[in-house]
């Protein structure tokens, strides 16, 4: 329970602590994750007019930074998604508690509680929160593709990466149905599932045998903007060059 965690105690039956690792030495910046995410999470297409106003949404994106000058140019790139911070700057600024961290470390956005102040998006140093300016529309028959496991967000709320919370839920229900505990690899967010270079891993970081825990302790692990003290749950494995 969260109250126990606040008091610094581990509960008897600890919840999984979800985390993601992205190996920048494998990641090619191919953006398969970006489209996989849109397909999985009913992320609407803004269209050119709204996109020109800065209203395009990508719950995960590839940031790129050019360094140096021709011919010695380097591009550093990095998939950026909600970092699911332990000390998330988005949470305290929400006047209606529509965003909080749950017992498994997920930064949750409750759409039907959100009143759309956008303070959270403003306060997020990673720019991963998106406001829904208009009721999303899918031109017939594109609506047939919508994933029934994920709510379509109405106009007026903020949305962002959920670590595919619906897949976590599904995996738990399946494990429950089969009468077994969750296993490492049971939960694969759409981006992780899709990644052609197999750069992404997801799992319970408190399980020392999990792939993600091993990646985090690989010695190449770093976090984005650690100096802000946000304690992200997304770990990047440095490019080895």
């Amino acid at each position, binding site marked *: 329970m969260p109250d126990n965690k606040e008091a610094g105690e581990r509960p008897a039956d600890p919840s999984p602590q979800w985390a993601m690792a992205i190996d920048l*030495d494998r990641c090619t910046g*191919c953006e398969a994750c970006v489209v996989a995410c849109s397909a999985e999470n009913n992320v609407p297409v803004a269209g050119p007019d709204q996109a020109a106003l800065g209203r395009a949404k990508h719950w995960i994106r590839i940031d790129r930074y050019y360094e140096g000058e*021709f011919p010695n140019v380097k591009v550093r790139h990095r998939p950026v998604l909600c970092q699911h911070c332990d000390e998330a700057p988005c949470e305290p600024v929400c006047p209606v508690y529509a965003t909080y961290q749950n017992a498994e470390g997920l930064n949750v956005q409750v759409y039907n509680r959100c009143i759309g102040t956008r303070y959270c998006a403003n306060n997020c140093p990673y720019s991963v929160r998106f406001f829904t300016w208009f009721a999303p529309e899918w031109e*017939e*028959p594109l609506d047939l593709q919508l994933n029934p496991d994920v709510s379509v967000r109405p106009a007026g709320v903020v949305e962002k990466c959920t670590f595919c919370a619906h897949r976590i839920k599904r995996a738990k229900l399946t494990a429950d149905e089969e009468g077994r505990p969750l296993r490492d690899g049971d939960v694969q967010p759409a981006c992780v599932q899709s990644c*052609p270079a197999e750069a992404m891993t997801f799992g319970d970081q408190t399980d020392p045998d999990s792939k993600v825990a091993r990646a985090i302790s690989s010695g190449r692990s770093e976090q984005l903007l650690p100096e802000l003290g946000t304690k992200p749950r997304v770990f990047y494995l440095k490019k080895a060059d």
Partner: protein
Amino acid sequence: MDRRNFFKIVGTASGGAVTGACGKQATEIIPLLVPEEEIVPGVESWRPAVCGECGAGCRMLARVMAAEREIDHEGGRVRQRIAAVKKLEGDPSDPVSGGRLCARGHAALQGLYNPDRVRGPLKRTGARGEGQFEPVSWEAALEAVAEAVATQLATDPAKILFLSPPVAGTKAANVARFLGALGAPGARAVGFGDHAAELEASRRCFGWDGLPVYEIQDSTMALSIGADFLGSWHSPVLYSRRYGHMRQGRRGIRGRLVHAEARFSTTAWNADQWLPVLPGGELALALGIGQALLAELPAERVRDAPAPVRRAFSQVDLEAAAESSGITAATIRAAAADLAAADAPLVIAGASMVRPNSADAVTAACAINLLLDNVDRRGGIRPPASSGTGLEAHRPASAGWLERLAEARVVFLDRANPVYSTPAAADALADSEMVVSLSPFLDDTSTWADFVLPDHSDLERGGIVLPATAPSPALAATEPSFAPLHDSRDADKVLAALAEALGRPFAALDARTALQRLGERIGTAGDDGAAFASEALRRGGWSGAGQDILPDASPRLDEFASWSRPDGLLLQCYPSLQFGHGDGANRSWLQELPDPASSAMWSLPVELDPGTAERLGLANGDPVVIESAHGSLRAPAYINPAAIPGVLSMALGQGHTHFGRYASGRGANPMHVVGAARDAQTGATVTGPVAVTIRKAAGQGGLIQFSHQDRDAPPHRT
């Protein structure tokens, strides 16, 4: 209903069930009887499917769930519950995709559910190319087409031309049977994405009929010349997987990647070192590296190399190669030294951007592997794996397609868009007697058709597709598992019906029959192939173990033609990871996918170097006009710090005259400026370079970027 209206209704309504309040209209629409094979709401199933977005032929699993749609039915509107595809994922048992998928693969779903699909047969009403059509019955359309074909058969069947995608499988086999029955010449591809240079190089270097397989995952030092294998090329998912393994999949070994390309592509920015070779200088660079290797390799290894290879490389003047490629002799020597010192060296040879000398360039680069003696070695280059079905033989080639189009009186188009790749093709179409399109979309070329007989979407079709390249013998095979969404018909059956009507019937080949034949030969004892076929169809394909090692031929390396680069400012265009050669442009996910280099959405820019931008007084997003002897285009400028000075680059994908609501009339097609040049040896469409002038234009550029400037700044310290 949005939130505001919701609250309004809540404020006034006091009764009525959920649907009564929220969707009164919906309740009045009577639902149709659900199909016998009931689709249970909320229950998912995964069905095998094949990706047709490029030639890689990735096997996929389609997540199918119930969905409801409204349709016209017997004069009224009804609700219909259908099996809808919600998501596509790679099939983990497929040796090509390995369970993964690229951006374009995911967007195949938007091909199936594209609002601009041709929903039934169409007959042209306006002028050719205008895009004015009216619906027509299948019977009337087939009759009219059959009549035109019959007339042509009576005069000259050689002037019937079938333009197809460069993909092998049952469909290509059926097209071949159809044309054979008519006595017409074989189908042609239109020179885009056909890997013609790589296929030709494979024949010349190794005597192989098919694309070489690169064992990137096991190499310790890979030099790629001209192949943007992480961005598009032969099989982006397969090679991205292999790249990931090369970097971090082996304990204590991290493979090194050096990439030579005239653009800072996805592969270039992932490389440890990028060699910015000048456009068309890939041949000189490959020859230079071969020459330098002769000095770097131990004498006995050079002695063991095939004589034609030694001869070809020993004749090269390294300084001249350096001059011509734009890469210094010292850099060339260093790259050669790296290859010579590596445990498992590999040269990946390709032509993502096709030059007039690409076949030569890829041949020379391939030949370096012969010098490195890595053919059929771990971490080296392997022969293509034959599927064993014989379907490879029907892969359409491009050679001579434009000349044949100019002569053709009856033209069939199947997902071939020559007017986009070669705008001059429109003139040839304008003079034809009959143009028939089987494409599911009204694209730049289909709008020139007299009749559109829409094929099913790739996800609705069945058949065998052979992957462009696979680590082991492999094929994707499906049977139709969804009811077609629209009044489309399987192109194989349409061709069979046409042939029947012409009195020249042929037996159409389906996936099951082809698999049974394969099963008879390689299946288990006692199986007549039927069990093999059923199992393959259940799994969505088949892959065998082991390799077919094809006989080595004596390399033919003495036929390098000379080509000189035009002077001045150059433009080249390239297939992009989001649009390929332009055929992904009508998927809104891909339109809104930020371009990897420029972060542009809905608006592909011309990339230029900071020096040229400064000279012209250009800022990011300013409109420019680019002109060549062939034509001109207007596009926003993107100043790319990694652009080679004096070389402009533009992705293929925008500038479609017709391609549905998301792509029509959006941006510019750079092929108008590049012109209709083709590689004389292979027929592949040259995508540059071409000499151009550039000037700043008035008005707004229209560049829409996802990442704002602050994200272009150096990263925060981490």
